[in-house]
């Protein structure tokens, strides 16, 4: 069998596209359970914000975030067969960067209500998913759109119940999104 240069280039391009699709599907499989985990963390964290005084919010989220970051690293490492240390560093760096960004934004803008503290992380999470998803993982971008939109609906229409809104709609949205990714 003789294969021309253009045929070979076409075949290599097909291989590249299929490999990229497989990479996206693998990413969904790894990220699905992690999103479910964060959905549960959101539900607990925002639920706690709805019932506890503002002075306890920081401690609640410090504990939940620590659990979430460690569990994300463990889940990702066990699901990903390659470059485990690179994955752990990336997750840790992303979490630290997001945390630092939220803290800096609050420090500069100084929100005057507890509701703003609750809503901003939801918007940021939605934005990050949209940015990451736009490159390769379309489903992640859609989850980001839903989380950001749900957050704004809560801000405009359910402000008195925003903590519980974020717990149920935000947390529930992440859980549903994680299950959707896992089914890909």
């Amino acid at each position: 069998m003789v294969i021309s240069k253009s045929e070979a280039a076409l075949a290599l391009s097909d291989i590249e596209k299929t490999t990229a699709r497989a990479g996206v599907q693998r990413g969904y499989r790894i990220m699905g359970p992690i999103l479910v985990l964060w959905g549960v963390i959101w539900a607990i964290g925002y639920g706690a914000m709805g019932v506890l005084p503002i002075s306890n919010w920081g401690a609640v989220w410090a504990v939940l975030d620590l659990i979430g970051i460690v569990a994300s690293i463990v889940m990702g490492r066990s699901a990903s067969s390659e470059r485990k240390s690179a994955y752990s560093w990336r997750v840790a760096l992303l979490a630290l960067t997001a945390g630092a960004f939220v803290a800096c934004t609050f420090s500069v803008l100084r929100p005057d209500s507890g509701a703003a503290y609750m809503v901003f992380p939801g918007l940021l999470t939605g934005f990050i998913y949209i940015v990451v998803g736009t490159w390769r993982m379309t489903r992640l971008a859609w989850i980001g759109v839903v989380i950001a939109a749900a957050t704004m609906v809560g801000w405009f229409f359910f402000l008195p119940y925003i903590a519980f809104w974020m717990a149920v709609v935000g947390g529930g949205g992440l859980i549903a999104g994680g299950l959707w990714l896992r089914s890909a």
Partner: protein
Amino acid sequence: MYEPDDLIHQPLRLKIMAALYAERNADPLEFSKLKSLTQATDGNLGSHLTTLEKAGYVAVEKDFVGKRPRTRVAVTPAGRNAFRRHVDYLRSVVEGVDD
């Protein structure tokens, strides 16, 4: 130096091998996921998998999850080598190594 693999070079079989090679370190791939990765139809995918299985390039496992039948496919060591060699050949053609 490099030789083409006639069996792998068929377009759908090439995609099947590429998908399975990409998942070589993971669990065997379910038929439905392989179908979505290769954008093939059920019948077409099944017949090309049979060809690859006969050549010893893929291993097909059939079992049940509850009452639901499940077909999973993985690339064999022989299939990995054959695919790598074929990709090397394609690259050599594109890069004009034998020209």
